[in-house]
């Protein structure tokens, strides 16, 4: 029964991306930017190396802006239009609704990511890349997108305004992305104990993403992203449920 509700929500949500121009706009922008970053900014040809490092090094930054746009509507739109009242009075659990929606958004970004496959093909035609590393990069990109989306889904449930949901998500996602970089760490290292600074650094999406995309699939990095998704989706259920008290 849990699965019936979940799969119905998933199908509806997934189709709704394609019912509006959102899906196509997102995919076009995503592909255009991956192209620009890889070939121009990343110097794909000039580097003379058969790998997708330029593509993967820009992917977190692209996701930082684009996944919040995919996630922002998940709950905020339901609240705005009032359809949330229908959704939450169906005989399905809040968890099923939360997970169904999240998986739809994740599947959608997964499709966008798959559409970058021509890059992979190109690099194979031009040289002899380590396809294992590239595959690891795709896995890393996909689960990182999931973590971004889980943050966005949860924050989207806080408001009926999609713009607020978007801005909040970009901010929170930015902190998680940057937390391993000096710009964030310097702020803390001047006063916080080293242990805390290390802890903050360990939440960095970039650190974990770079580790996997270099071809080293470490269980800890995978657990980090999966854990992120679980925690944010759990928070998402709590937020949706807390809103039943009326606000």
């Amino acid at each position: 029964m849990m699965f019936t509700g979940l799969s119905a929500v998933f199908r509806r949500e997934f189709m709704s991306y394609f019912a509006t121009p959102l899906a196509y706009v997102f995919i076009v922008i995503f592909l255009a930017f991956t192209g620009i970053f890889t070939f121009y900014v990343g110097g794909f040809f000039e580097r003379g190396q058969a790998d997708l490092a330029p593509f993967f090094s820009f992917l977190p930054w692209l996701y930082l802006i684009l996944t919040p746009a995919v996630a922002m509507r998940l709950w905020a739109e339901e609240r705005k239009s009032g359809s949330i009242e229908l959704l939450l009075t169906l005989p399905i659990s809040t968890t099923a609704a939360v997970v169904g929606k999240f998986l739809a958004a994740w599947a959608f970004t997964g499709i966008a990511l798959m559409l970058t496959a021509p890059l992979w093909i190109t690099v194979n035609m031009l040289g002899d890349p380590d396809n294992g590393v590239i595959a690891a990069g795709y896995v890393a990109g996909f689960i990182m997108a999931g973590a971004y989306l889980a943050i966005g889904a949860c924050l989207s449930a806080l408001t009926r305004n999609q713009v607020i949901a978007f801005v909040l998500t970009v901010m929170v996602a930015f902190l998680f992305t940057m937390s391993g970089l000096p710009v964030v760490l310097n702020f803390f290292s001047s006063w916080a104990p080293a242990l805390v600074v290390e802890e903050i650094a360990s939440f960095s999406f970039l650190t974990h993403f770079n580790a996997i995309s270099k071809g080293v699939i470490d269980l800890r990095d995978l657990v980090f992203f999966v854990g992120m998704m679980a925690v944010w989706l759990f928070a998402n259920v709590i937020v949706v449920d807390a809103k039943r008290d009326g606000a």
Partner: protein
Amino acid sequence: MQPLLEARALVKDFAHIRAVDGVSFSVEPGAVMGFLGPNGAGKSTTMKMLTGFLRPTAGEAFIAGHSVEGAPIAAKRRLGYLPEGAPAYGDMTPLTFLTFTARARGLADVAGAVRRAVAATHLGSVAEQPIDTLSKGFKRRVGLAQAILHDPDVLVLDEPTDGLDPNQKHEVRSLIRDMAAAKAIIISTHILEEVDAVCTRAVIIDRGRIVADGTPASLRARSRYHNAVAVTVAANDAAAARAVMADVDDVAEVEVAQSGAAAVITALAKDGRPIIGALTGRLEDKGIKMMEIAVDPGRLDDVFRTLTTSEAGSDATQEAA
């Protein structure tokens, strides 16, 4: 008979406002309860608690014996709900939207359920247009179709005829009447004629509390116009007729309305006692020619106003009791 729907002392607080303050009632199968009250009285909030969308601050709701908070899935399976304003997913068509609802409910025959709901609400002509592009009347019917899709035991309909034209209202009311036999139905409305048209019972709520609960006829009996007699006479007989009518036992008050060559004189009955017999007898004795006689069963809008307008309400309630 076991009630299909029950509210037990429901209370809902928002920030500093108590929106619903101890509302209790139960609805048996076959009953259509009209839920009346001014805007902001707590009708929609009560319905949101009955259907499990809002969590009550105190009290509990039961659907077919299942606690809405304790066993939400079992309770919601037996429930059909049309929320206020009939929200829907605007980018879907009625067909895809109803299919989604049927799937989410885990119905065995999705296509059949959708087909029956579309037919019952006459949505066939717009079944493949985006809901956003539909008129208000069609949107309301989409919401209704979604609510009756799984043939639920309990229907909670928040303003089901709001925004419909008279023909559509008539259709929706017959639909509700047709379904009423085996279900418990609550409709909220501020259209009083609706109560007569479909309800077997009316509950009036004001500032979060139930102020009246009874059959439409019993509520009407509380009107000061209950058993009032309106007599139409020629204008030049008006003064004489007025004097005669004012003199009849149990007549509390007489009102005169002049319209052209005729005058309508209304005698209000004291405590709603029947006065028509005595009154017409006396007028005939005096040789006053009556062109038209009408007995007023009482006016719901009059009862509604007295019960729901501030302090005057409580006084009138005591008088009527």
